[in-house]
């Protein structure tokens, strides 16, 4: 087993990896940019090194700097977390060249799965179902027209180098095709520096369901159940759960086997996730992409299976065999994760960087807090707004939702706006409660319903605000009175004398 690991990340995921290492008896090295000196990950790690200025390109995305620190600190391995360098095949190779273990799959697996076109070719050879569409890229407008005629409408245009929901466009009819083709190409060039675009069928009622897999370096591979990730806003996941409300055992089995085939296509040898797009109408599922890293939402799988994915990933990287067999994997109960972000849900999810001046983390049964913040922490403007994940467990979905609602009602983050109120309102939404949603649910249906929601507490809000206004007015008049008449008298003393209840 490793003696020391460097975590090339920040925020909640860096804290998560440090926790796993501590439980395994492995020393930890944190890295941080200038603005992250006070980061929680720096405080919990055994060692810490500054790796440069705030912009990620000069710090968390700088492979040479991270390798330099890894060598100086004499670590055995590097855990990349998610984002940043986690899916960078060149970085994985650079680690190997420097005789440092990259905690992730082999670089070739990262390279193939990192590109939509090459990954589709690879998994198609293993007979994994793909969304009906093309395996090559569109050559020109004529080629695009031919394929559109073959696939039919509505269809999707996607950037080959895309990801994270960026660089894709739905086309409803032939009159919109050419404009969409040109727009997707130019967007792809701008965002990914690669204008390659391909086409596929649009899936009605699309749900995003993914399978967690674990493979070791001895050829063993298992699937560890699915996660439902359809609650998204503009293609960004907000709430994930396990199991999915629409997946039953036979379907789980079929999806699990398809996921293993996809992973075998690249001799996968780490923790990874195979994402599928599932038609909520027909329950057909199609390979979307494979994420060759630990996912943000991995805790929901851990909660229902009892498997510590993060530790398992480290053990695998150290050359150990999988500690679990396929038949040992069982999902029990239900888990839900809410991504808590520094964004204002009542103002179009605008980012809200700033200082957290008050914090109350929910507790009680079935609650797991995965946060990278603390009271007094300043959320920087330079990185992803995710500050914490609230994970709840219940014996079934209904109980998990009720528990999630309870936990969110206890959660207080003061100083910055967060997405907590949004999550609380989703947990009350009838369609969500019934499991009746797809990836468009938040952007279309929920937002409309949310705007029309019942607001039984508005009178209390008015009363609270009015009393606060009254107290502020009193304080002002006391202060001005003191300034006028006091003749050098301290206004604070005066206000202290008027009532002993000033703290109330």
């Amino acid at each position, binding site marked *: 087993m490793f003696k020391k690991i460097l975590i090339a990340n920040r925020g909640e995921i860096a804290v998560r990896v440090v926790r796993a290492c501590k439980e395994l008896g492995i020393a930890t090295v944190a890295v941080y940019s200038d603005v992250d000196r006070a980061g929680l990950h720096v405080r919990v790690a055994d060692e810490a090194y500054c790796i440069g200025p705030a912009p990620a390109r000069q710090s968390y995305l700088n492979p040479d700097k991270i390798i330099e620190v890894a060598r100086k600190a004499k670590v055995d391995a590097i855990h990349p977390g998610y984002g940043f360098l986690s899916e960078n095949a060149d970085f994985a190779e650079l680690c190997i060249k420097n005789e440092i273990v990259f905690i992730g799959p082999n670089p070739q697996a990262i390279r193939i799965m990192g590109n939509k076109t090459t990954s589709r070719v690879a998994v198609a050879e293993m007979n994994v179902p793909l969304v009906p569409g093309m395996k090559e890229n569109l050559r020109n407008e004529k080629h695009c027209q031919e394929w559109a005629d073959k696939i039919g409408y509505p269809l999707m245009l996607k950037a080959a180098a895309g990801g994270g929901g960026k660089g894709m466009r739905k086309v409803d009819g032939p009159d919109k095709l050419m404009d969409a083709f040109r727009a997707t190409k130019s967007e792809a060039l701008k965002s990914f520096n690669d204008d390659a675009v391909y086409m596929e069928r649009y899936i009605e009622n699309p749900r995003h369901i993914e399978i967690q897999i674990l493979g070791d370096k001895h050829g063993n591979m298992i699937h560890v159940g699915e996660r439902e990730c359809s609650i998204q806003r503009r293609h960004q996941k907000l709430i994930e759960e396990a199991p999915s409300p629409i997946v039953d055992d036979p379907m789980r089995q079929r999806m699990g086997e398809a996921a293993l085939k996809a992973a075998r296509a690249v001799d996968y040898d780490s923790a990874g996730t195979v994402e599928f797009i599932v038609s909520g109408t027909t329950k057909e599922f199609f390979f979307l992409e494979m994420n060759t890293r630990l996912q943000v939402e991995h805790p929901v799988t851990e909660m229902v299976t009892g498997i510590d994915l993060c530790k398992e990933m480290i053990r695998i990287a150290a050359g150990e065999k999988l500690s679990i067999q396929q038949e040992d994997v069982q999902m029990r109960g239900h888990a839900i994760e809410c991504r808590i972000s520094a964004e204002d849900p009542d103002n179009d999810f605008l980012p809200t960087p700033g200082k957290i001046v*008050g914090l109350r983390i929910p507790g009680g049964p079935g609650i797991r807090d995965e946060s990278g913040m603390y009271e007094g922490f300043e959320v920087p403007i330079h990185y992803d707004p995710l500050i914490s994940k609230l994970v709840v467990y219940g014996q079934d979905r209904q109980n998990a939702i009720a528990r999630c609602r309870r936990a969110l009602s206890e959660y207080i983050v003061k100083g910055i706006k967060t997405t907590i109120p949004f999550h609380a309102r989703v947990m009350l939404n009838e369609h969500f409660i019934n499991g009746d949603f797809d990836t468009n649910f938040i952007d279309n249906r929920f937002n409309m319903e949310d705007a029309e929601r019942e607001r039984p507490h508005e009178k209390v809000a008015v009363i609270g*605000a*009015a009393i606060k206004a009254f107290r502020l007015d009193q304080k002002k008049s006391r202060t001005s009175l003191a300034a006028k008449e006091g003749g050098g008298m301290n206004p604070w003393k005066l206000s202290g004398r008027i009532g002993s209840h000033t*703290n109330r």
Partner: protein
Amino acid sequence: MNYVATFKGEDVRVKVEESGPGLYRVRVDGEEFEVDFFSVQENIYSLIIDHHSYEVDIDEVGRDQYSVLLKNDHFDVKIVDEKKKKLAEKLGAGASGRQEIKSPMAGNIWKLMKNQGDSVKEGEVLLILEAMKMENEIRSPIEGVVTSMAAVEGSAVSAGALLCLLNPVEN
């Protein structure tokens, strides 16, 4: 004290009296409440109204403007002294005049979509602000003309910094 509370565009008369230490008698729209108002920590209050307990987060976000978070629902409430409101009405409010567009957060000016002298429609994008890996569109709240553009492409701004000035279109 008498106030006028504005919530979702509707005005409600509110009367607040102190009835004891931390105790208030509040009349809202003719209905009376006895309220025990306790400050737990900065901007967080515990309210007991007829033995119902509420934890309420009340921030003063602007002049007479309050942002209230209660049972994970969000309310924007305006509370104005009734006398002040009457005075303002007498002076003929409505002539809202020029609008100052301020940055809602700290970030970098990514791109200016409008320049000085340009006319804008309500809801049109004035500029794009980059923060936390996201591009955020700053839109015009009114139809008008950009009289001054203080924002400079590529420069950093803090929350509340003036971005530009707009003059409304005269009807």
